[in-house]
């Protein structure tokens, strides 16, 4: 196309990157936030739901089974999802022939059983997770769009390697004062450092929806993807309930001893499901956490009521395992706090990478006569990227407001006993309000940036972000169920989110300050960040 391969790659990098930049930025930012989806949900519900992670003992399991037997004695399957160390609550579930039910529980010290609690009706951090692969267009093919974006990102990363002229000489370079040079070096450094991360994320994204993107050969050789899946994936074989037999009491300590024998001591119990619990041949399937294994299928052990081993699941073959490993790498359930923070920072770097690419292109064109469309794109760029950050802050503020209302409305005891969410009396449920607020704020910032002059719009959005995140963090500091309580309890999940809020507030405050003191009219854009390290934990970092 162009005289050399490298020049073609530069062209491809520029234009493929530009067209998909905003979409990719939104996907990467919300995807990075979803590394902390459970923590965010926990943080949102903290005022209403004071869950505390405790390793389940035999007693706890016994009590949970008792609760289930009272609620659904004749169920086909019972399930207990234990609380995890990221703030995820404990849930009980059962399944009968006709229906399924699941509810969140909390240990009630007074009655000594697990009592249903009413968590705050909010989408929580899972909104970001589902947004980053459906774009909230689940029924309109959002997943196809994100799949295309993943492929384009792969192309962008590959062509970017060729675009970077002095790959090895400039490996560690980050030039200071000149804005364009700084942006270019930042883009280059982040690009190089996140090559493996972006490759794994994008390729695994394509593999996750292997049934959707190129489905034709599946439908040619099989009736449906489900048939293919039944041949590659293994599961526990169906058991038939022994009729006219009564359940024997479960020997939980024996079961736990079996688990310890098999898995050692460093595991965390994820869930327990019981098939045909009211019959003698009830099967107890214990599933552990992903631990330090990349596959997205965690190990499980099947036991009978006495604690003896039953037939285990056969191992899956290579093809399925390859997909499982990529799937596991994408979701990163194995990540303990430090690794999760590292992955989060890599994700943020990728988001900055994408946004800075557009900034470089815009900056380069500033030298030439600025066409109208460049002005528009600059304004839109600020609105879309920083507006998304503001929308995230607004979403979290909304949940704080709602939980404040709920806490005002009833005491915690009332929350434990009421079955239905009292907030649902509005015509619009809380979840709809959250969604509207998120997209409304995003749209409003885009419009504000378009309408206002370039520098004004930027200052406004930065100020709004700084204020929003500061408000969130201050509320956290001062609230009863806030940072201080979390510090007392060692609630790492809560503290992580508080720290991220603080860093975001600090970041936007500094950016706004630098913009505000830059009085020279000639420089429409902000001053380069001198020595403000693109910190590992800087949230919503973009140009």
């Amino acid at each position, binding site marked *: 196309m162009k005289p050399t391969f490298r020049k073609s790659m530069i062209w491809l990098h520029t234009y493929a990157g530009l067209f998909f930049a905003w979409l990719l930025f939104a996907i990467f930012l919300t995807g990075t936030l979803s590394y902390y989806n459970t923590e965010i949900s926990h943080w949102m519900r903290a005022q209403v739901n004071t869950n505390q992670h405790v390793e389940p003992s035999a007693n706890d399991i016994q009590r949970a089974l008792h609760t289930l037997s009272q609620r659904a004695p004749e169920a086909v399957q019972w399930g207990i999802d234990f609380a995890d160390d990221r703030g995820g609550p404990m849930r009980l579930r059962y399944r009968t022939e006709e229906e399924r039910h699941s509810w969140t529980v909390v240990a009630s010290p007074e009655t000594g059983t697990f009592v249903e609690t009413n968590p705050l009706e909010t989408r929580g951090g899972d909104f970001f997770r589902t947004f980053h692969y459906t774009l909230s267009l689940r029924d309109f093919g959002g997943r196809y769009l994100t799949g295309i974006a993943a492929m384009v990102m792969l192309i962008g990363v590959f062509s970017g390697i060729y675009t970077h002229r002095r790959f090895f*000489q400039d*490996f*560690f*370079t*980050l030039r*200071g004062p000149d804005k364009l040079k700084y942006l270019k070096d930042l883009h280059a*450094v*982040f690009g*190089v*450092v*996140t090559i*493996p*991360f972006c490759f794994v994320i994008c390729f695994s994204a394509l593999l996750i929806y292997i049934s959707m993107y190129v489905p034709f050969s599946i439908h040619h050789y099989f009736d449906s993807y489900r048939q293919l899946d039944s041949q590659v994936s293994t599961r526990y074989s169906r058991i038939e309930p022994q009729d006219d037999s009564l359940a024997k009491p479960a020997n939980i300590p024996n079961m736990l001893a079996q688990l310890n024998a098999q898995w050692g001591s460093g595991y965390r119990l994820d869930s327990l499901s019981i098939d045909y619990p009211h019959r003698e041949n009830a099967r107890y399937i214990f599933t552990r956490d992903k*631990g*330090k*294994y*990349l596959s997205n299928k965690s190990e499980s052990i099947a036991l009978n009521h006495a604690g003896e081993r039953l037939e285990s699941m056969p191992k899956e073959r290579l093809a399925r395992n390859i997909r499982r*490993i990529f799937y596991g*790498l994408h979701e990163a359930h*194995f990540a303990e706090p430090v*690794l999760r923070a*590292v*992955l989060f*920072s*890599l994700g943020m*770097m990728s988001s900055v990478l994408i946004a800075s690419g557009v900034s470089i292109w815009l900056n380069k064109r500033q030298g030439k006569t600025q066409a109208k469309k460049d002005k528009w794109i600059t304004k839109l760029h600020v609105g879309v990227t920083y507006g998304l950050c503001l929308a995230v802050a607004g979403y979290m503020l909304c949940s704080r407001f709602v939980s404040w209302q709920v806490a005002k409305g009833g005491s915690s005891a009332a929350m434990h006993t009421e079955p239905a969410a009292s907030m649902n009396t509005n015509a619009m449920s809380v979840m709809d309000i959250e969604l509207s607020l998120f997209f409304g704020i995003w749209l409003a910032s885009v419009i504000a940036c378009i309408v206002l002059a370039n520098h004004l719009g930027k200052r406004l959005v930065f100020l709004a972000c700084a204020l929003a995140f500061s408000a969130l963090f201050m509320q956290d500091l001062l609230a009863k169920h806030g940072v201080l309580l979390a510090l007392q309890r060692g609630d790492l999940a809560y503290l992580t989110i508080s720290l991220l809020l603080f860093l975001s507030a600090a970041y936007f405050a500094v950016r706004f300050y630098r913009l505000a003191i830059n009085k020279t009219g000639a420089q429409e854009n902000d001053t380069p960040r*001198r*020595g403000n*390290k*693109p910190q*590992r934990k800087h949230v919503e970092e973009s140009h």
Partner: protein
Amino acid sequence: MLFLLLLSSVACLSLAMNKHYKACFNRAISAPKERVLRLLGWGLMLVSLGMALVQQRGGSMGFQFMQWCCLLSVAIVLQVWLLNRVQQHKTQHGHKANNLKKANTRKKVNNIKEARNSKKTLAKN
């Protein structure tokens, strides 16, 4: 521990580059030193990789390798930032010294030019 090892290896490798060595130590790097730093850098990196893979505390080798890659990325970013800070520190504080240096070199260049010119005029005559 692993991270510190990685960071030092990355630091060595980066300092082996003339540009960054000059920025930190104010003089060009010498060839033997460059070789030593490079060997040290790659050596430390291999050691850290070996340590990561051999660790039986964690899960599979794949997991350890992935963790090592992530730490490597962070180490590179940290090193880039550190070098940037050093550079800025030097430019802010060494500005005066640099100006003097520049003036001196300019004088020297001018002297050499004059000497050459006078030689030429002498040759012409």
